[in-house]
Protein backbone atom coordinates (compact mmCIF):
# COMPACT_ATOMS: atom_id res chain seq x y z
CA UNK A 1 0.00 0.00 0.00
CA UNK A 2 1.48 3.27 -0.98
CA UNK A 3 -0.69 5.81 0.75
CA UNK A 4 -2.91 4.98 3.70
CA UNK A 5 -5.57 6.64 5.80
CA UNK A 6 -6.04 5.83 9.48
CA UNK A 7 -9.38 4.15 10.18
CA UNK A 8 -8.79 3.52 13.85
CA UNK A 9 -6.01 4.44 16.23
CA UNK A 10 -5.63 4.93 19.94
CA UNK A 11 -7.27 8.17 21.13
CA UNK A 12 -4.87 10.72 22.60
CA UNK A 13 -7.16 10.93 25.63
CA UNK A 14 -5.73 7.58 26.75
CA UNK A 15 -2.27 7.41 28.27
CA UNK A 16 -0.08 4.94 26.39
CA UNK A 17 0.31 2.19 28.97
CA UNK A 18 -0.95 -1.36 29.48
CA UNK A 19 -4.09 -1.98 31.52
CA UNK A 20 -4.57 -4.27 34.50
CA UNK A 21 -7.89 -5.66 33.25
CA UNK A 22 -8.29 -9.41 32.63
CA UNK A 23 -8.46 -10.73 29.04
CA UNK A 24 -11.86 -9.96 27.52
CA UNK A 25 -12.96 -7.66 30.34
CA UNK A 26 -15.40 -5.03 29.07
CA UNK A 27 -13.95 -2.34 31.34
CA UNK A 28 -11.34 -1.84 28.65
CA UNK A 29 -13.93 -1.15 25.98
CA UNK A 30 -15.85 1.17 28.30
CA UNK A 31 -12.68 3.13 29.17
CA UNK A 32 -11.87 3.47 25.51
CA UNK A 33 -15.35 4.70 24.61
CA UNK A 34 -15.29 7.38 27.31
CA UNK A 35 -11.87 8.53 26.12
CA UNK A 36 -12.95 8.57 22.48
CA UNK A 37 -16.04 10.66 23.19
CA UNK A 38 -14.03 13.18 25.24
CA UNK A 39 -11.58 13.47 22.34
CA UNK A 40 -14.25 13.72 19.65
CA UNK A 41 -16.08 16.43 21.59
CA UNK A 42 -12.80 18.34 21.88
CA UNK A 43 -13.00 18.32 25.68
CA UNK A 44 -9.66 16.78 26.68
CA UNK A 45 -8.49 20.06 28.23
CA UNK A 46 -11.84 20.63 29.96
CA UNK A 47 -12.54 17.26 31.54
CA UNK A 48 -12.27 16.06 35.13
CA UNK A 49 -12.80 12.32 35.52
CA UNK A 50 -13.80 11.00 38.92
CA UNK A 51 -12.92 7.35 39.50
CA UNK A 52 -14.15 4.87 42.04
CA UNK A 53 -13.09 1.92 44.14
CA UNK A 54 -13.46 -1.38 42.34
CA UNK A 55 -11.91 -2.69 39.15
CA UNK A 56 -12.17 0.86 37.75
CA UNK A 57 -9.92 2.19 40.53
CA UNK A 58 -7.04 3.07 38.21
CA UNK A 59 -9.12 5.01 35.68
CA UNK A 60 -7.21 8.17 36.57
CA UNK A 61 -3.97 6.47 35.58
CA UNK A 62 -5.32 5.55 32.16
CA UNK A 63 -7.22 8.65 31.10
CA UNK A 64 -5.11 11.44 29.71
CA UNK A 65 -7.00 14.24 31.45
CA UNK A 66 -7.43 15.44 35.03
CA UNK A 67 -8.61 12.80 37.45
CA UNK A 68 -9.62 12.23 41.06
CA UNK A 69 -9.66 9.00 43.06
CA UNK A 70 -12.47 9.30 45.62
CA UNK A 71 -13.52 6.95 48.41
CA UNK A 72 -15.80 3.98 47.76
CA UNK A 73 -19.21 5.07 46.52
CA UNK A 74 -18.74 8.81 46.94
CA UNK A 75 -17.85 9.73 43.38
CA UNK A 76 -21.15 11.54 42.67
CA UNK A 77 -20.63 13.73 45.76
CA UNK A 78 -17.03 14.46 44.78
CA UNK A 79 -18.14 15.20 41.20
CA UNK A 80 -20.80 17.54 42.62
CA UNK A 81 -18.09 19.48 44.45
CA UNK A 82 -15.99 19.78 41.31
CA UNK A 83 -18.90 20.72 39.06
CA UNK A 84 -20.23 23.42 41.40
CA UNK A 85 -16.80 25.05 41.36
CA UNK A 86 -16.21 24.52 37.62
CA UNK A 87 -19.64 24.53 35.96
CA UNK A 88 -18.28 24.68 32.41
CA UNK A 89 -16.12 21.54 32.65
CA UNK A 90 -17.10 18.00 31.72
CA UNK A 91 -17.25 16.08 34.98
CA UNK A 92 -18.02 12.39 34.89
CA UNK A 93 -17.73 9.49 37.29
CA UNK A 94 -16.80 5.95 36.34
CA UNK A 95 -18.26 3.47 38.83
CA UNK A 96 -18.96 -0.22 39.13
CA UNK A 97 -22.08 -1.89 40.50
CA UNK A 98 -20.80 -2.21 44.07
CA UNK A 99 -19.51 1.35 44.19
CA UNK A 100 -22.59 2.91 42.62
CA UNK A 101 -25.54 0.71 43.50
CA UNK A 102 -24.57 -0.58 46.98
CA UNK A 103 -22.34 1.66 49.08
CA UNK A 104 -22.92 4.72 46.88
CA UNK A 105 -26.69 4.45 46.36
CA UNK A 106 -27.43 7.57 48.37
CA UNK A 107 -24.92 9.73 46.52
CA UNK A 108 -26.16 8.45 43.14
CA UNK A 109 -29.85 8.97 43.93
CA UNK A 110 -29.37 12.46 45.32
CA UNK A 111 -27.10 13.61 42.51
CA UNK A 112 -29.98 12.63 40.22
CA UNK A 113 -32.56 14.25 42.50
CA UNK A 114 -30.65 17.54 42.45
CA UNK A 115 -30.31 17.35 38.69
CA UNK A 116 -26.57 17.68 39.24
CA UNK A 117 -24.98 18.39 35.87
CA UNK A 118 -22.61 15.46 35.97
CA UNK A 119 -22.51 12.14 34.12
CA UNK A 120 -22.23 8.73 35.71
CA UNK A 121 -20.79 5.91 33.61
CA UNK A 122 -21.98 2.81 35.42
CA UNK A 123 -20.35 -0.56 34.74
CA UNK A 124 -22.75 -3.35 35.66
CA UNK A 125 -21.14 -6.78 35.54
CA UNK A 126 -23.21 -8.28 38.39
CA UNK A 127 -20.21 -9.05 40.57
CA UNK A 128 -17.51 -7.46 42.74
CA UNK A 129 -14.40 -7.87 40.62
CA UNK A 130 -11.75 -6.10 42.68
CA UNK A 131 -12.31 -7.96 45.93
CA UNK A 132 -12.59 -11.33 44.24
CA UNK A 133 -16.04 -12.19 42.99
CA UNK A 134 -18.48 -11.39 45.80
CA UNK A 135 -22.21 -10.80 45.32
CA UNK A 136 -23.15 -7.38 43.96
CA UNK A 137 -26.46 -5.54 44.27
CA UNK A 138 -27.00 -6.42 40.60
CA UNK A 139 -26.12 -10.13 40.91
CA UNK A 140 -28.71 -12.19 39.05
CA UNK A 141 -31.08 -14.58 40.81
CA UNK A 142 -29.38 -17.94 41.17
CA UNK A 143 -25.96 -16.52 40.23
CA UNK A 144 -23.12 -18.14 42.16
CA UNK A 145 -20.60 -15.76 43.73
CA UNK A 146 -18.15 -16.21 46.60
CA UNK A 147 -20.73 -14.75 48.98
CA UNK A 148 -23.74 -16.44 47.40
CA UNK A 149 -22.17 -19.89 47.04
CA UNK A 150 -25.49 -21.62 46.46
CA UNK A 151 -26.66 -18.99 44.03
CA UNK A 152 -28.43 -15.72 44.89
CA UNK A 153 -31.66 -16.50 46.63
CA UNK A 154 -34.38 -13.92 47.26
CA UNK A 155 -35.17 -15.03 50.78
CA UNK A 156 -31.62 -14.41 51.90
CA UNK A 157 -30.32 -11.72 49.54
CA UNK A 158 -33.26 -10.04 47.83
CA UNK A 159 -33.33 -9.06 44.18
CA UNK A 160 -31.08 -7.29 41.66
CA UNK A 161 -31.40 -3.51 41.63
CA UNK A 162 -32.39 -1.80 38.37
CA UNK A 163 -30.67 1.56 38.51
CA UNK A 164 -31.92 3.06 35.25
CA UNK A 165 -35.56 2.26 35.94
CA UNK A 166 -35.25 3.82 39.40
CA UNK A 167 -33.45 6.98 38.30
CA UNK A 168 -35.72 7.51 35.32
CA UNK A 169 -38.52 8.37 37.76
CA UNK A 170 -36.58 11.40 38.98
CA UNK A 171 -37.22 14.81 37.51
CA UNK A 172 -33.60 15.85 37.87
CA UNK A 173 -32.36 12.94 35.75
CA UNK A 174 -32.28 14.19 32.15
CA UNK A 175 -30.64 11.35 30.26
CA UNK A 176 -30.72 7.74 31.43
CA UNK A 177 -29.83 4.77 29.26
CA UNK A 178 -28.67 1.18 29.44
CA UNK A 179 -26.32 -0.21 26.82
CA UNK A 180 -24.11 -3.28 26.41
CA UNK A 181 -20.84 -4.21 24.71
CA UNK A 182 -21.41 -7.82 23.68
CA UNK A 183 -21.08 -7.23 19.93
CA UNK A 184 -19.86 -4.48 17.59
CA UNK A 185 -23.34 -3.04 17.01
CA UNK A 186 -23.86 -2.70 20.75
CA UNK A 187 -20.47 -1.02 21.12
CA UNK A 188 -21.44 1.59 18.53
CA UNK A 189 -24.74 2.22 20.37
CA UNK A 190 -22.95 2.44 23.69
CA UNK A 191 -20.60 5.10 22.38
CA UNK A 192 -23.51 7.13 20.98
CA UNK A 193 -25.18 6.91 24.35
CA UNK A 194 -22.10 8.16 26.22
CA UNK A 195 -21.92 11.04 23.76
CA UNK A 196 -25.57 11.93 24.40
CA UNK A 197 -24.95 11.82 28.13
CA UNK A 198 -21.93 14.13 27.87
CA UNK A 199 -23.87 16.47 25.59
CA UNK A 200 -26.75 16.53 28.05
CA UNK A 201 -24.27 17.68 30.67
CA UNK A 202 -22.48 20.24 28.52
CA UNK A 203 -25.80 21.74 27.44
CA UNK A 204 -26.63 22.18 31.11
CA UNK A 205 -29.80 20.10 30.89
CA UNK A 206 -29.32 17.97 33.98
CA UNK A 207 -28.05 14.71 35.38
CA UNK A 208 -27.11 11.87 33.04
CA UNK A 209 -26.26 8.23 33.54
CA UNK A 210 -25.23 5.46 31.14
CA UNK A 211 -25.36 1.94 32.51
CA UNK A 212 -23.09 -0.42 30.60
CA UNK A 213 -23.81 -4.15 30.94
CA UNK A 214 -20.33 -5.62 30.98
CA UNK A 215 -18.66 -9.00 30.95
CA UNK A 216 -16.45 -10.24 33.79
CA UNK A 217 -14.98 -13.43 32.31
CA UNK A 218 -12.72 -14.13 35.29
CA UNK A 219 -15.34 -13.97 38.03
CA UNK A 220 -18.00 -15.59 35.86
CA UNK A 221 -15.58 -18.44 35.00
CA UNK A 222 -16.27 -18.04 31.29
CA UNK A 223 -14.12 -17.43 28.23
CA UNK A 224 -14.24 -13.87 26.88
CA UNK A 225 -16.56 -14.91 24.08
CA UNK A 226 -18.79 -16.99 26.37
CA UNK A 227 -18.92 -14.04 28.77
CA UNK A 228 -20.06 -11.70 25.99
CA UNK A 229 -22.80 -14.21 25.12
CA UNK A 230 -23.73 -14.43 28.80
CA UNK A 231 -24.37 -10.69 28.85
CA UNK A 232 -26.68 -11.03 25.86
CA UNK A 233 -28.50 -14.10 27.08
CA UNK A 234 -28.60 -13.64 30.85
CA UNK A 235 -28.13 -9.97 31.73
CA UNK A 236 -30.22 -8.31 29.02
CA UNK A 237 -33.48 -10.12 29.98
CA UNK A 238 -33.08 -8.81 33.56
CA UNK A 239 -31.66 -5.41 32.62
CA UNK A 240 -33.42 -4.43 29.37
CA UNK A 241 -31.43 -2.20 27.04
CA UNK A 242 -32.62 1.16 25.82
CA UNK A 243 -32.98 4.83 26.58
CA UNK A 244 -35.18 5.43 29.59
CA UNK A 245 -35.08 9.20 29.38
CA UNK A 246 -33.83 11.53 26.65
CA UNK A 247 -34.07 15.30 26.89
CA UNK A 248 -35.43 17.38 24.01
CA UNK A 249 -32.60 18.77 21.94
CA UNK A 250 -30.24 15.89 22.65
CA UNK A 251 -32.31 13.35 20.69
Amino acid at each position, binding site marked *: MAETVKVYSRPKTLIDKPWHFCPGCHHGIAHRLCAEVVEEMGLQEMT*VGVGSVGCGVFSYEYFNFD*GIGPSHGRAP*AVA*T*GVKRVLPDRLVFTYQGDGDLAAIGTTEMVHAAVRGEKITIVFINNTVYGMTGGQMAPTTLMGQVTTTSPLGREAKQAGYPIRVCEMLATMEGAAYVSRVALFNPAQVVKAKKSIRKAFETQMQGVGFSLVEILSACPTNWGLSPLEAAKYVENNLVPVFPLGEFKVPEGVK
Partner: protein
Amino acid sequence: MSNTELLLMKGNEAIGEAAIRGGCRYFFGYPITPQSEVLEYLARRLPEAGGAYVQAESEVSAINMVFGAAAAGARVMTASSSPGISLMQEGISYIASAQLPAVIVNIMRGSPGLGGIQPSQADYFQSTKGGGHGDYRLVVLAPSTVQEMIDHTVMAFEIAEKYCTPVVVFADGMMGQMMEPVILPDIEPVPSEKPWATTGMQGRGPNIIHTLHLPPDQLEWHNNRLFEKYHQIEAQEKRSLEYFTDDAEILVVAYGIVSRVARAAVEKAREAGVKAGLFRPVTLWPYPSEALVKAAGKARKVLVVEVSMGQMVEDVRLAINGRVPVEFYGRIGQVPTPEEILNKITQLIAEVA
Protein backbone atom coordinates in the same frame (compact mmCIF):
# COMPACT_ATOMS: atom_id res chain seq x y z
CA MET B 1 -21.05 45.78 55.48
CA SER B 2 -18.28 48.21 56.17
CA ASN B 3 -15.31 47.31 58.31
CA THR B 4 -16.16 49.65 61.12
CA GLU B 5 -19.68 48.42 61.59
CA LEU B 6 -20.48 46.71 64.84
CA LEU B 7 -22.85 43.80 64.69
CA LEU B 8 -24.43 41.49 67.21
CA MET B 9 -23.90 37.99 65.87
CA LYS B 10 -24.58 34.44 66.86
CA GLY B 11 -21.46 32.26 66.77
CA ASN B 12 -22.84 30.12 63.96
CA GLU B 13 -23.73 33.14 61.81
CA ALA B 14 -20.37 34.70 62.54
CA ILE B 15 -18.59 31.63 61.21
CA GLY B 16 -20.67 31.82 58.04
CA GLU B 17 -19.89 35.50 57.45
CA ALA B 18 -16.22 35.00 58.36
CA ALA B 19 -15.95 32.21 55.79
CA ILE B 20 -17.27 34.51 53.06
CA ARG B 21 -14.88 37.28 54.07
CA GLY B 22 -12.09 34.72 54.22
CA GLY B 23 -12.67 34.01 50.53
CA CYS B 24 -14.78 30.88 50.86
CA ARG B 25 -17.43 30.61 48.16
CA TYR B 26 -18.46 26.98 48.49
CA PHE B 27 -20.24 25.32 51.38
CA PHE B 28 -21.66 21.83 51.64
CA GLY B 29 -23.50 20.72 54.75
CA TYR B 30 -26.34 18.93 56.43
CA PRO B 31 -28.58 20.30 59.21
CA ILE B 32 -27.85 19.31 62.80
CA THR B 33 -28.52 21.12 66.07
CA PRO B 34 -26.76 23.21 67.40
CA GLN B 35 -24.97 24.01 64.13
CA SER B 36 -27.81 24.58 61.65
CA GLU B 37 -27.51 28.39 61.59
CA VAL B 38 -24.21 28.05 59.71
CA LEU B 39 -26.14 26.43 56.85
CA GLU B 40 -29.07 28.80 57.17
CA TYR B 41 -26.82 31.84 57.11
CA LEU B 42 -24.78 30.66 54.13
CA ALA B 43 -27.89 29.54 52.24
CA ARG B 44 -28.87 33.23 52.28
CA ARG B 45 -25.46 34.82 51.87
CA LEU B 46 -23.50 32.59 49.47
CA PRO B 47 -25.71 33.17 46.43
CA GLU B 48 -25.33 36.95 47.06
CA ALA B 49 -21.57 36.50 47.30
CA GLY B 50 -21.44 34.61 44.01
CA GLY B 51 -20.77 31.13 45.30
CA ALA B 52 -22.57 27.84 45.68
CA TYR B 53 -24.30 26.30 48.65
CA VAL B 54 -25.53 22.73 48.52
CA GLN B 55 -27.50 21.02 51.23
CA ALA B 56 -26.11 17.52 50.94
CA GLU B 57 -28.07 14.32 51.54
CA SER B 58 -25.82 13.41 54.48
CA GLU B 59 -22.63 14.44 56.20
CA VAL B 60 -20.94 11.63 54.28
CA SER B 61 -21.85 13.32 51.02
CA ALA B 62 -21.13 16.81 52.35
CA ILE B 63 -17.50 16.02 53.18
CA ASN B 64 -17.03 14.35 49.79
CA MET B 65 -18.43 17.42 48.06
CA VAL B 66 -15.83 19.34 50.04
CA PHE B 67 -13.20 16.91 48.72
CA GLY B 68 -14.33 17.58 45.13
CA ALA B 69 -14.51 21.35 45.50
CA ALA B 70 -11.10 21.47 47.20
CA ALA B 71 -9.65 19.28 44.44
CA ALA B 72 -11.06 21.77 41.93
CA GLY B 73 -9.07 24.50 43.68
CA ALA B 74 -11.81 26.28 45.63
CA ARG B 75 -11.83 27.61 49.18
CA VAL B 76 -14.44 25.37 50.71
CA MET B 77 -15.97 24.69 54.11
CA THR B 78 -18.39 22.36 55.83
CA ALA B 79 -19.87 22.52 59.31
CA SER B 80 -21.56 20.01 61.52
CA SER B 81 -21.93 18.86 65.10
CA SER B 82 -20.53 15.79 66.82
CA PRO B 83 -22.56 12.89 65.32
CA GLY B 84 -22.31 14.49 61.89
CA ILE B 85 -18.56 14.96 62.27
CA SER B 86 -18.31 11.25 63.08
CA LEU B 87 -19.95 10.48 59.75
CA MET B 88 -17.39 12.66 57.97
CA GLN B 89 -14.34 10.87 59.31
CA GLU B 90 -13.69 8.69 56.26
CA GLY B 91 -13.78 11.71 53.99
CA ILE B 92 -11.54 13.72 56.32
CA SER B 93 -8.93 10.95 56.20
CA TYR B 94 -9.04 11.11 52.37
CA ILE B 95 -8.76 14.91 52.34
CA ALA B 96 -5.78 14.76 54.70
CA SER B 97 -4.11 12.07 52.60
CA ALA B 98 -4.83 13.87 49.32
CA GLN B 99 -3.36 17.03 50.93
CA LEU B 100 -6.29 19.26 50.10
CA PRO B 101 -7.03 22.50 51.95
CA ALA B 102 -10.47 22.56 53.59
CA VAL B 103 -12.11 23.97 56.71
CA ILE B 104 -14.31 21.80 58.90
CA VAL B 105 -16.35 23.39 61.68
CA ASN B 106 -17.46 21.28 64.65
CA ILE B 107 -20.06 22.87 66.93
CA MET B 108 -19.98 20.10 69.51
CA ARG B 109 -23.00 18.67 71.27
CA GLY B 110 -23.50 16.05 73.96
CA SER B 111 -22.32 12.53 73.17
CA PRO B 112 -21.83 9.58 72.78
CA GLY B 113 -24.50 8.29 70.40
CA LEU B 114 -27.29 10.73 69.70
CA GLY B 115 -26.34 12.32 73.04
CA GLY B 116 -28.13 15.61 73.48
CA ILE B 117 -28.13 19.11 72.08
CA GLN B 118 -26.35 20.78 74.96
CA PRO B 119 -22.74 21.99 74.75
CA SER B 120 -19.86 19.54 74.88
CA GLN B 121 -16.10 19.27 74.37
CA ALA B 122 -16.06 15.50 74.10
CA ASP B 123 -14.79 15.33 70.51
CA TYR B 124 -11.27 16.34 71.56
CA PHE B 125 -9.77 12.88 70.98
CA GLN B 126 -11.59 12.54 67.66
CA SER B 127 -10.25 15.81 66.29
CA THR B 128 -6.76 15.93 67.77
CA LYS B 129 -5.79 12.25 67.66
CA GLY B 130 -7.29 11.22 64.34
CA GLY B 131 -10.91 10.20 64.11
CA GLY B 132 -10.63 8.60 60.72
CA HIS B 133 -8.34 5.77 59.66
CA GLY B 134 -4.62 6.19 59.31
CA ASP B 135 -1.72 8.38 60.37
CA TYR B 136 -2.72 11.97 59.88
CA ARG B 137 -3.24 15.12 61.88
CA LEU B 138 -5.72 17.94 61.70
CA VAL B 139 -4.93 21.47 62.76
CA VAL B 140 -7.52 22.22 65.47
CA LEU B 141 -8.34 25.81 66.46
CA ALA B 142 -10.34 26.48 69.63
CA PRO B 143 -11.95 29.95 69.77
CA SER B 144 -13.62 31.18 72.95
CA THR B 145 -15.55 34.26 71.81
CA VAL B 146 -17.75 35.01 68.82
CA GLN B 147 -15.08 37.44 67.64
CA GLU B 148 -12.52 34.65 67.79
CA MET B 149 -14.87 32.35 65.89
CA ILE B 150 -14.59 34.92 63.10
CA ASP B 151 -10.83 35.42 63.42
CA HIS B 152 -10.12 31.70 63.67
CA THR B 153 -12.31 30.86 60.69
CA VAL B 154 -10.37 33.36 58.56
CA MET B 155 -7.09 32.00 59.96
CA ALA B 156 -8.24 28.41 59.30
CA PHE B 157 -8.42 29.06 55.54
CA GLU B 158 -4.95 30.59 55.57
CA ILE B 159 -3.44 27.65 57.44
CA ALA B 160 -5.32 25.13 55.29
CA GLU B 161 -3.92 26.63 52.09
CA LYS B 162 -0.46 27.24 53.46
CA TYR B 163 0.00 23.57 54.33
CA CYS B 164 -2.58 21.95 52.00
CA THR B 165 -4.30 20.29 54.91
CA PRO B 166 -7.74 20.20 56.54
CA VAL B 167 -8.23 22.55 59.51
CA VAL B 168 -10.91 22.20 62.19
CA VAL B 169 -12.63 25.12 63.90
CA PHE B 170 -13.58 23.51 67.19
CA ALA B 171 -16.33 25.06 69.30
CA ASP B 172 -19.25 23.94 71.40
CA GLY B 173 -22.98 24.42 71.07
CA MET B 174 -23.10 27.33 73.46
CA MET B 175 -20.59 29.25 71.35
CA GLY B 176 -22.56 28.42 68.23
CA GLN B 177 -25.75 29.77 69.78
CA MET B 178 -24.59 32.71 71.84
CA MET B 179 -24.52 36.26 70.56
CA GLU B 180 -21.81 38.81 71.06
CA PRO B 181 -20.87 42.07 69.41
CA VAL B 182 -18.30 41.60 66.68
CA ILE B 183 -16.28 43.56 64.19
CA LEU B 184 -16.14 41.84 60.84
CA PRO B 185 -12.79 41.89 59.07
CA ASP B 186 -12.63 43.94 55.89
CA ILE B 187 -10.11 41.83 54.02
CA GLU B 188 -9.38 40.82 50.46
CA PRO B 189 -7.85 37.40 50.79
CA VAL B 190 -5.61 36.31 47.96
CA PRO B 191 -6.19 32.62 47.30
CA SER B 192 -2.93 30.77 46.86
CA GLU B 193 -1.78 29.35 43.54
CA LYS B 194 -2.97 25.78 43.15
CA PRO B 195 -1.10 24.28 40.22
CA TRP B 196 -2.09 20.83 41.44
CA ALA B 197 -5.86 21.40 41.18
CA THR B 198 -7.97 19.22 38.88
CA THR B 199 -9.50 21.98 36.81
CA GLY B 200 -9.18 20.47 33.32
CA MET B 201 -5.69 20.35 31.81
CA GLN B 202 -5.92 23.59 29.82
CA GLY B 203 -2.48 23.28 28.34
CA ARG B 204 -0.65 21.28 31.00
CA GLY B 205 -0.43 17.54 31.62
CA PRO B 206 -3.07 15.69 33.65
CA ASN B 207 -3.37 16.53 37.36
CA ILE B 208 -4.33 13.52 39.44
CA ILE B 209 -5.58 13.66 43.03
CA HIS B 210 -5.79 10.30 44.75
CA THR B 211 -4.91 8.52 47.97
CA LEU B 212 -4.02 5.01 46.79
CA HIS B 213 -0.37 3.98 47.21
CA LEU B 214 -0.16 0.23 46.73
CA PRO B 215 3.60 -0.43 46.88
CA PRO B 216 4.61 -0.40 50.56
CA ASP B 217 7.64 1.83 50.03
CA GLN B 218 5.55 4.34 48.11
CA LEU B 219 2.99 4.40 50.91
CA GLU B 220 5.74 4.86 53.47
CA TRP B 221 7.21 7.70 51.41
CA HIS B 222 3.77 9.32 51.27
CA ASN B 223 3.33 9.05 55.05
CA ASN B 224 6.81 10.44 55.65
CA ARG B 225 6.00 13.36 53.41
CA LEU B 226 2.80 14.03 55.37
CA PHE B 227 4.71 13.95 58.63
CA GLU B 228 7.40 16.32 57.40
CA LYS B 229 4.54 18.72 56.91
CA TYR B 230 3.06 18.00 60.32
CA HIS B 231 6.44 18.62 61.97
CA GLN B 232 6.61 21.94 60.17
CA ILE B 233 3.13 22.81 61.46
CA GLU B 234 4.20 21.83 64.98
CA ALA B 235 7.19 24.13 64.70
CA GLN B 236 5.25 27.10 63.39
CA GLU B 237 1.60 27.06 64.37
CA LYS B 238 1.33 26.42 68.13
CA ARG B 239 -0.75 29.09 69.82
CA SER B 240 -1.82 29.70 73.41
CA LEU B 241 -2.81 32.49 75.81
CA GLU B 242 -1.94 32.98 79.46
CA TYR B 243 -3.45 34.96 82.33
CA PHE B 244 -1.64 35.48 85.65
CA THR B 245 0.73 32.60 85.01
CA ASP B 246 3.96 34.26 86.14
CA ASP B 247 3.52 33.36 89.80
CA ALA B 248 0.63 30.89 89.59
CA GLU B 249 0.64 28.14 92.19
CA ILE B 250 -2.54 26.63 90.82
CA LEU B 251 -2.55 26.58 87.03
CA VAL B 252 -5.95 26.05 85.44
CA VAL B 253 -5.88 24.72 81.86
CA ALA B 254 -9.02 25.14 79.77
CA TYR B 255 -9.95 25.92 76.17
CA GLY B 256 -12.95 27.34 74.33
CA ILE B 257 -15.98 28.38 76.32
CA VAL B 258 -14.60 26.82 79.50
CA SER B 259 -11.56 29.09 79.40
CA ARG B 260 -13.89 32.05 79.90
CA VAL B 261 -15.50 30.51 82.96
CA ALA B 262 -12.06 29.54 84.19
CA ARG B 263 -10.80 33.08 83.76
CA ALA B 264 -13.67 34.38 85.88
CA ALA B 265 -12.81 31.74 88.51
CA VAL B 266 -9.11 32.66 88.44
CA GLU B 267 -9.96 36.32 88.93
CA LYS B 268 -12.17 35.46 91.88
CA ALA B 269 -9.38 33.32 93.31
CA ARG B 270 -6.91 36.20 92.94
CA GLU B 271 -9.37 38.48 94.74
CA ALA B 272 -9.32 35.93 97.56
CA GLY B 273 -5.54 35.99 97.60
CA VAL B 274 -5.00 32.65 95.87
CA LYS B 275 -2.23 32.62 93.26
CA ALA B 276 -4.21 31.03 90.46
CA GLY B 277 -3.42 31.36 86.75
CA LEU B 278 -4.95 30.23 83.48
CA PHE B 279 -3.31 28.60 80.50
CA ARG B 280 -5.51 28.52 77.44
CA PRO B 281 -4.44 26.48 74.40
CA VAL B 282 -5.70 28.05 71.18
CA THR B 283 -4.38 25.27 68.94
CA LEU B 284 -5.39 21.87 70.32
CA TRP B 285 -3.24 20.27 67.65
CA PRO B 286 -0.43 21.11 67.50
CA TYR B 287 -0.63 21.22 71.30
CA PRO B 288 1.34 24.10 72.87
CA SER B 289 3.16 21.78 75.27
CA GLU B 290 6.33 23.85 75.70
CA ALA B 291 4.38 26.99 76.58
CA LEU B 292 2.30 24.98 79.02
CA VAL B 293 5.37 23.60 80.78
CA LYS B 294 6.74 27.10 81.09
CA ALA B 295 3.45 28.46 82.42
CA ALA B 296 3.39 25.68 85.01
CA GLY B 297 6.89 26.64 86.20
CA LYS B 298 5.80 27.72 89.69
CA ALA B 299 2.64 25.65 89.85
CA ARG B 300 2.13 23.17 92.65
CA LYS B 301 -0.94 21.71 91.00
CA VAL B 302 -2.43 21.84 87.54
CA LEU B 303 -6.22 21.73 87.16
CA VAL B 304 -7.71 20.81 83.78
CA VAL B 305 -11.37 21.72 83.25
CA GLU B 306 -13.37 20.42 80.30
CA VAL B 307 -16.95 19.71 79.28
CA SER B 308 -16.09 16.04 78.94
CA MET B 309 -15.02 13.11 81.10
CA GLY B 310 -11.40 14.16 80.59
CA GLN B 311 -9.70 14.20 77.22
CA MET B 312 -7.35 17.18 76.91
CA VAL B 313 -6.12 16.26 80.39
CA GLU B 314 -4.12 13.47 78.73
CA ASP B 315 -2.18 15.96 76.60
CA VAL B 316 -1.59 18.09 79.68
CA ARG B 317 -0.24 15.06 81.57
CA LEU B 318 2.02 14.21 78.62
CA ALA B 319 3.37 17.74 78.56
CA ILE B 320 3.76 18.09 82.34
CA ASN B 321 5.33 14.63 82.41
CA GLY B 322 4.97 14.07 86.13
CA ARG B 323 6.55 17.36 87.25
CA VAL B 324 3.39 18.45 89.08
CA PRO B 325 0.15 16.61 89.94
CA VAL B 326 -2.50 17.14 87.25
CA GLU B 327 -6.10 17.15 88.48
CA PHE B 328 -9.28 17.11 86.44
CA TYR B 329 -12.73 18.62 86.76
CA GLY B 330 -15.38 17.95 84.11
CA ARG B 331 -19.09 18.40 83.49
CA ILE B 332 -21.29 16.80 80.87
CA GLY B 333 -24.02 18.63 78.95
CA GLN B 334 -23.36 21.87 80.79
CA VAL B 335 -20.59 24.38 81.12
CA PRO B 336 -19.31 24.52 84.71
CA THR B 337 -19.84 27.76 86.63
CA PRO B 338 -17.01 29.95 87.93
CA GLU B 339 -18.04 28.94 91.47
CA GLU B 340 -17.53 25.24 90.73
CA ILE B 341 -14.03 25.91 89.40
CA LEU B 342 -13.26 28.27 92.26
CA ASN B 343 -14.27 25.56 94.74
CA LYS B 344 -11.93 23.15 93.04
CA ILE B 345 -9.09 25.70 93.11
CA THR B 346 -9.69 26.36 96.80
CA GLN B 347 -9.68 22.64 97.52
CA LEU B 348 -6.41 22.15 95.65
CA ILE B 349 -4.67 25.08 97.34
CA ALA B 350 -5.68 23.64 100.71
CA GLU B 351 -4.10 20.31 99.75
CA VAL B 352 -0.73 21.88 98.94
CA ALA B 353 -0.75 24.42 101.76
